[in-house]
């Protein structure tokens, strides 16, 4: 890591990045109905202001020697040898995230003004959204693992509140609880990692921990890596903690776009990239990251192929794409920049796809079943074009964003060499084909074919306040990959964090060949999708008689069933058994002893109450006497 300087100028005020949206949330929540009329404007304004400030800070950072500054705020917790400061670290890595969070966040705020226009609780929505932005900025700006943890659970809270935004719907309330609890499982890992850092190195700051990884024993480093990975899996919906993310689609669609696609769920990738020195020092931990990424990218892609709910397809796609990012950062130094580049382009096109899905739902009476769509291309032209560009970017259409960033990951996987390199590369290519399949299927079901709309539905284009953010994100979907790879190389910008980009070593397969191979597989996936749904009449209800493979894909490889039978049911039995034991056993022994001494326990309950009462009064009398004696003694 390069030398960190104290912040000056605008960077010294970078705490305002967090404070602005936080203040917005506080005003909206405490202000009550008085703020109903302008609350959404305040909520949006604070995030736009944070984006402008973030941009200015980043520009200033570019001119700072070493491109890393520290903002010391106040002492958070100091006792014994533990000293946790509240402070921020503004470096190229956090800057990239600040721009993503506030930039995409501002666009989605604007979109939400239209999307939530008729919801009576719109003010509450913007308050929670602001709360999320503040917590997410703390997560990426904090200069210690404790600060990260505070933001980490803070975004978990915001996610809970927003998934359960329409809380009268039992499914939404349950999904929110599931998300929070599964995240907490991951949080245990993150918390234990923090404890290990303090026990070993006496500090939890990035500077203190990451600068001293060399002092730690090999086993300790691996343990740290695995604990951090557990935390990352919870937040990012990675195997085996992926089951909450598709359910989180119960939240309003802008929430799915911002939190459950573009930003919060990528926090796990941030955590691993931020902890690069730990993972660099432990090949075993890196291997587990790779395996988790590869498994998850396949689970997500397979499940995405069999969903009929447009948001569920996109959700499983997110699970799968974050699997790509984990795969990338698991490759170590060669993969960090590739993973983060894909994270950024994914932020653009997936947010755009979700906003497009929201626009479709808006025009279709909140229908989410794609079997009830069809032929919308002509009715919603802006949505169709922007969504189509996002689609092309996601499947890796040549020269669009996904082409640059996903192909880089696939190349890096092959470059790992050996059997594992071929295996990982093969999985990544196969995943690309599946991605093309499920996304083409989604496009065909939604925008092409014969209309299969419900009665009384009149599809219409969404208002400008919604389509403008979609257009901006579509432009990003087209251009971001090219810009980040060729024009303003992300690798150079992040060099102070991950080191100078290595000269291209000998590739296992020439990059051009990888591109051609991937493009062919993608084309194959798209053609198969067309053969399945584009060419044939689509039934309005999903066929019940399907092959075991399709059934497994519909149930996302039975993740919920496994969780239920392994954890939830045994847990409920255990709880019931313990309640019985505590009431009959532990308490029974005590009551029974008392009963054995004094007859039946019910007699004890009645007869001896009078006794206890008089005893209590006797004690009170005694205490009064003692007090009187005391006064007498003192006076005398």
């Amino acid at each position, binding site marked *: 890591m390069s030398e960190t300087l104290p912040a000056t100028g605008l960077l010294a005020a970078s705490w305002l990045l967090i404070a602005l949206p936080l203040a917005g949330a506080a005003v909206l*929540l405490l202000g009550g109905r008085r703020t109903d009329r302008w609350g959404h404007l305040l909520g949006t304004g604070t995030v736009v202001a944070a984006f402008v400030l973030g941009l200015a800070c980043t520009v200033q950072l570019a001119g700072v020697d070493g491109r890393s500054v520290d903002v010391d705020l*106040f002492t*958070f*917790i*100091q006792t*014994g*040898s*533990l000293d946790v*400061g509240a402070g921020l670290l503004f470096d190229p890595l956090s800057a990239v995230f600040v721009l993503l969070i506030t930039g995409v966040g501002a666009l989605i705020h604007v979109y939400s003004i239209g999307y*939530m226009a*008729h919801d*009576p609780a719109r003010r509450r929505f913007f308050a929670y959204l602001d709360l999320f932005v503040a917590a997410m900025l703390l997560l990426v700006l904090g*200069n210690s693992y404790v600060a990260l943890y*505070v933001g980490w*659970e803070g975004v978990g*809270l915001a996610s809970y509140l927003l998934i359960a935004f329409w*809380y*009268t*719907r*039992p499914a939404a*309330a349950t999904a*929110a*609880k599931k998300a929070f609890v599964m995240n*907490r*499982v991951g*949080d*245990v890992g993150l*918390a*234990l990692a*923090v404890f290990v850092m*303090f*026990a*070993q*190195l*006496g*500090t*939890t700051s*990035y500077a*203190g921990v990451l600068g*001293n990884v060399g002092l730690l024993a090999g086993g300790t480093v691996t343990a740290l890596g695995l604990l951090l990975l557990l935390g990352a899996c919870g937040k990012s919906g990675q195997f085996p903690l992926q089951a909450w993310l598709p359910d989180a689609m119960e939240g*309003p669609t802008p929430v799915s776009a911002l939190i459950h696609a573009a930003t919060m769920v990528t926090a796990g990738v941030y955590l691993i990239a931020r902890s690069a020195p730990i993972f660099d020092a432990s090949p075993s931990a890196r291997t587990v990251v790779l395996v988790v990424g590869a498994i998850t990218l396949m689970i997500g892609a397979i499940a995405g192929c069999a969903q009929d709910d447009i948001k569920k397809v996109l959700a499983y796609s997110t699970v799968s794409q974050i699997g790509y990012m984990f795969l990338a950062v698991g490759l170590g130094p060669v993969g960090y920049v590739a993973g983060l580049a894909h994270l950024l382009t994914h932020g653009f096109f997936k947010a755009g796809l979700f906003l497009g899905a929201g626009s479709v739902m*808006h025009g279709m009476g*909140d*229908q989410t079943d794609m079997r009830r769509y069809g032929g919308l291309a002509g009715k919603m032209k802006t949505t169709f074009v922007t969504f189509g560009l996002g689609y092309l970017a996601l499947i890796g259409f040549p020269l669009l964003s996904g082409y640059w960033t996903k192909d880089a990951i696939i190349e890096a996987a092959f470059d790992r060499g050996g059997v594992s390199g071929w295996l990982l590369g093969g999985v990544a290519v196969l995943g690309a084909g599946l991605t093309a399949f499920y996304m083409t299927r989604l496009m065909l079901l939604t925008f092409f074919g014969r209309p299969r709309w419900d009665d009384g539905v009149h599809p219409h284009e969404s208002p400008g306040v919604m389509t403008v953010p979609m257009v901006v994100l579509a432009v990003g979907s087209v251009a971001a990959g090219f810009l980040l790879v060729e024009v303003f190389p992300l690798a150079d910008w992040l060099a102070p964090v991950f080191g100078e980009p290595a000269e291209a070593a000998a590739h296992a397969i020439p990059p051009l060949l990888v591109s051609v191979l991937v493009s062919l597989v993608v084309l194959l996936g798209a053609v198969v999708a067309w053969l399945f749904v584009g060419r044939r009449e689509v039934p309005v209800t999903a066929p019940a008689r399907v092959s075991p493979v399709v059934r497994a894909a519909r149930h996302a490889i039975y993740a919920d069933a496994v969780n239920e039978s392994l954890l939830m049911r045994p*847990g409920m039995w255990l*709880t*019931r058994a*313990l*309640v019985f034991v*505590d009431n009959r056993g*532990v308490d029974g022994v*005590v009551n029974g002893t008392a009963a054995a001494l004094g007859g039946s326990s019910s007699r004890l*309950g009645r007869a001896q*109450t009078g006794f*206890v009462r008089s005893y*209590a009064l006797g*004690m009170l009398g005694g*205490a009064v006497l003692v007090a009187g004696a*005391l006064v007498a*003694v003192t006076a005398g």
Partner: protein
Amino acid sequence: MSDFPWLLAMIVVPAAGAAVVAALPRGRDLLAKQVALGVSLLVFLLAVLATVAFDTGGPRFQLTTSVSWIADFGVSFALGVDGIALVMLLLIGLLVPVVLVASWADTMPAHRSMRSYVAWLLLLEAMMVGVFAATDVFLFYVFFEAMLVPMYFLIGSYGGPRRQYAAMKFFLYSLVGGLVMLASVIGLYVVSNSQLGQGTFAFDALRQLDIDPGVQKLLFIGFFVAFAIKAPLVPFHTWLPDSGAEAPIGGAVLLVGVLDKVGTFGFLRYCLPLFPDASRDLAPWILVLAVIGVLYAALLAMGQSDMKRLVSYTSIAHFGFIALGIFAFTTEAATGAVLYMVSHGIATGLLFLVIGMLIARGGSRHIRDYGGVAAKAPLLAGVFLIAGLASLSLPGTSSFVSELLVLIGAFPTRPVFTILATTGIILAALYILIMYQRTMHGPPRGVLLADDEPAAAVPAGTSGGATAVMDAPARTRSLRVQDLSRRELAVVAPLVALIVALGVYPQPLIDLVRPAVAATMDDVGSDPGGITPTHPGSEGTN
């Protein structure tokens, strides 16, 4: 000003207030409440001024008052506080007026008056101040027993349907603990008599004794049992769910929020400094109980249908965390334990209060009788959520700071126990969010539903935007429930503000208790300077 007998005043004022209120003529309930509130606010002011007069750099015990009492036995009426006792006095001073305002509109059981209820509350306050302020072990014992009396009557006379059973159970458990402790108190006197040539109960003198390890163990167990019943550790816990459930809300807040903390306070004040060898020898066993408590009580909390019982079980789990923090013998963890005592008092107090407000509307303590309350009472639901989040130690609340300190401080010396306890944060999320979802979320349901309004409007927040797919409840009936009143807001606002303030900036509170914690760690033979990391000299810039 430092000569002013702050602590004595904090005992005398509420005791006198109790006498005045009790002497009021029958039927003057409003006046009784007003007098009691005034008295309790005065006590709070005294606690704040005492804190101002307290010098964190000064001697261990300050604001001392000492009067020889039973000279023949070396008993003196000696009061004084260290930082730990002082924050407990602040907590008492805060919670009693809050409880009084919260109980303002309570209906009393037949033949019981508000006047007598508030009189017992004030008497309880006086006794609780005494138990934390005593620096003479015999005086401590007297207050320890005496505070049972007002609490017994608060539960047994003003509580729920099974109040007499619960009160008796509370009393018998506490009495047994107290008697065992009395034996140890007398034992201490005997030891001091043989070592110093003159028996004493003064804490500072007893701390200097060099007690034979075997004797230490016996005396330790006497104190430990009393304290483990009071701040219930499994398996001494079964009285608390009954008392917590049957006590009137005000009594439950003070019982779980303050009175039970005498147990954990006793561990720190008496067990560790007086019996350091025994504490070290027996710590593994106590930690086993603590960690079992964390997990067992959390699982039990999930299985409860009665919200007050549920919160009582969560408290048993929290006491397990506090015991872990104390018996890990590190400055960091013990600081966390003290902060935990404070933040648990505030957070669980708030949780009890808001559940009481819900029960006042629905008339039932059972989760199954509620549903969808958030739609009609968003403020109540919001406060419920904040209290719940504080209970599951979400960052940004005071409980997070204390739980983090306990766990991060206990991990270096007790990694296995700490890892097990850390999994308790998952269970905490479950028991809070399950209760919250069932009562606050979902369609309107349960006792709050108005039967006689068949075609009422769909609950607020269910139309427009992308919400039209929302499943309407089978029959659209509306909830008959009012949101929080101004009085109720005044009750919860200071607690919510403190939870957040201490969660964001806890350092002033840490600075207040740190010297006392360090001294206690020194007594028990740990490095008061805190943990030495495995790789020292590697401290980062932070």
